[in-house]
């Protein structure tokens, strides 16, 4: 397997360039000269552009990491938190919280979202444990149905109480509401993601399967529990702050592991970087496609990610081996 070091360095440069572009993309005209020459230029960057760019980078990176971890510990290439009910669980939690305690502070909603996201994930694991291991595609299929059921439940509640547009905020994620003071929760997600990196080796061992992991001396239950908790926290923080963004956690780990394998300690930084870069590129496009209005970032990512993935699939034989 190739070393991801070089790709990481190239990626870092690309993401830095995208970040600069992102800082100067928005409804209010702002050129680099204006940013430093005119009053209000730096203030605009501080209050709007920088928070948005950071929020996108963290979200992209953490969703990709959450997806990679999920894929390794569940030993299935086709799962990711947003398609197996974790994201839907988080959104359901927000809905229940804002319904039970109107005007609840963000922290309360976040705790609710994390708890329901965890519950939804464990319920999903309990369901898929009964599936035959010879049919790996059944897992994502059940996941889609399961996520759909949770969303149907949300829609039912929302319909009864005239909250359809409200749940749409969480179901279709985008970054138009991000400002200084409105995204800081994501830093917690970043910290949790970094913590996942610390146990990357244990996660990789857990990915060998229960019996192998236990015979290698790993506390399998503890590692699985920690990893799922971390994924639930990351996902619910993202859903609370910007809403659900599907496919990031599915595409990015697959893109990276096609070339660099599943040694999480080596690949997780690249996974995070690729996720951040792709979502940031999507968000810049989301701001520009219908300027001055916004397009949901998930829509753009779906198109961009699919094209990127196809290119990678078809280009591979010429480079590898």
């Amino acid at each position, binding site marked *: 397997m190739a070393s991801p070091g070089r790709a990481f360095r190239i990626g870092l440069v690309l993401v830095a360039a995208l970040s600069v572009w992102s800082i100067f993309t*928005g*409804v*209010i005209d702002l050129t680099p000269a204006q940013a430093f020459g005119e009053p209000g230029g730096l*203030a*605009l960057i501080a*209050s*709007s552009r920088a928070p948005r760019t950071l929020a996108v980078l963290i979200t992209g990176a953490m969703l990709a990491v959450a997806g990679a971890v999920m894929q390794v510990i569940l030993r299935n290439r086709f799962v990711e938190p947003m398609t197996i009910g974790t994201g839907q669980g988080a959104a359901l939690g927000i809905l229940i919280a*804002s*319904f039970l305690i*109107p*005007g609840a502070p963000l922290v309360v909603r976040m705790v609710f979202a994390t708890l329901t996201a965890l519950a939804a994930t464990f319920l999903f694991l309990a369901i898929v444990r009964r599936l035959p291991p010879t049919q790996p595609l059944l897992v994502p299929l059940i996941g889609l149905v399961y996520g759909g059921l949770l969303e149907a439940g949300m829609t039912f509640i929302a*319909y*009864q*109480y*005239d*909250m359809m*547009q*409200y749940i*749409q*905020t*969480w179901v279709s994620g*985008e970054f*138009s*509401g991000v*400002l*200084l*003071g*409105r995204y800081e929760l994501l830093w917690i997600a970043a910290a949790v993601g970094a913590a996942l990196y610390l146990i990357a080796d244990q996660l990789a061992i857990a990915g060998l399967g229960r019996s192998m992991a236990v015979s290698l001396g790993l506390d399998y239950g503890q590692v699985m529990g920690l990893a799922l908790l971390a994924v639930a926290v990351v996902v619910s923080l993202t859903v609370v702050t910007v809403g659900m963004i599907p496919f990031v956690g599915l595409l990015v780990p697959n893109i990276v592991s096609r070339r660099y394998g599943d040694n999480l300690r080596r690949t997780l930084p690249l996974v995070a970087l690729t996720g951040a870069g792709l979502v940031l590129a999507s968000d810049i496009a989301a*701001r520009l496609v*219908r300027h*001055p*209005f*916004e*397009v*949901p970032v998930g829509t753009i990512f779906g198109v961009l990610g699919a094209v990127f993935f196809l290119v990678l699939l078809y280009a591979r034989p010429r480079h590898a081996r």
Partner: protein
Amino acid sequence: MLRTLALCLTLACGPLAGQTVTVDTYRGPVEVETMPERIAVFDVAALDTLAALGVTPAGVIEPIYVTYLGDATAGAERVGTLFEPDFEAVAALGPDLIIAGGRSYEAVPDLARIAPTIDMTIWEDVVGQGLDRLEAYGEIFGKQDEAAALAVAFQEKLAATRAAVAGKGRALIVMTVGPKVSGYGAGGRFGWLHDALELPEAVEAVEDATHGEAISFEFIRDADPEILIVVDRQAAIGQGGAAAKATLDNALVRETRAWKTGRVIYLDSAPLYIAGGGIQSMSIILDQIAAHVTGG
């Protein structure tokens, strides 16, 4: 085709010795039997105007989401929800006339198979069609005088509000949903506020999308309207204008002229959104705008 169908059904199903009147509906003029005794109502704007006329329906949808119509529907049978009629309940009710439209628009042909149905959708020209509907109900229920009085009172209120906002500058209509904001233009579902009040738009490019255009706070800052009209979609779950205010109270919106001069008007979303075009709903909205502009 549908019009002919509705017309045929109206004629075919009516009792022999009824007096009829031709009223304008969304699908064109339809002949309707006057003084129907049992009516089923599927549109909240219709319910609003009928309540103002003192007409009590025998069947209504539930929930109706707006609070000010609670008394008007007391004792009525439940015949479905905002979008979906419960056809069995409608058939069991055996109404003489069904008033549908708006969100139940698509159910009109099916409802027409049960009883004479008029499509009273209000769309685009909210004020004009709202007043047309008022007049039509007046004729159907023999309350022409009441309807005329309501129309005159509304026109006066409209003129007064128009005078109150005249010269106060350009306005931007936004709707807050949780932490996010969408913008509405003169062609959108709240556009009648621009037209009827002759309120200039702060941004002309906002398109005619039912649920508005997703916008960022930078968009509001860049538009810099003198009047910011805010529809809070979350008011339905008891968070009122507080949630909308919390969403908009940020470094960018604070820099707009509307925020600096206090011309940020929070409108109740249910009357505007659910019952849009109802005569009471339009009066409530105008009152809220007038109270704010003259007060501030």
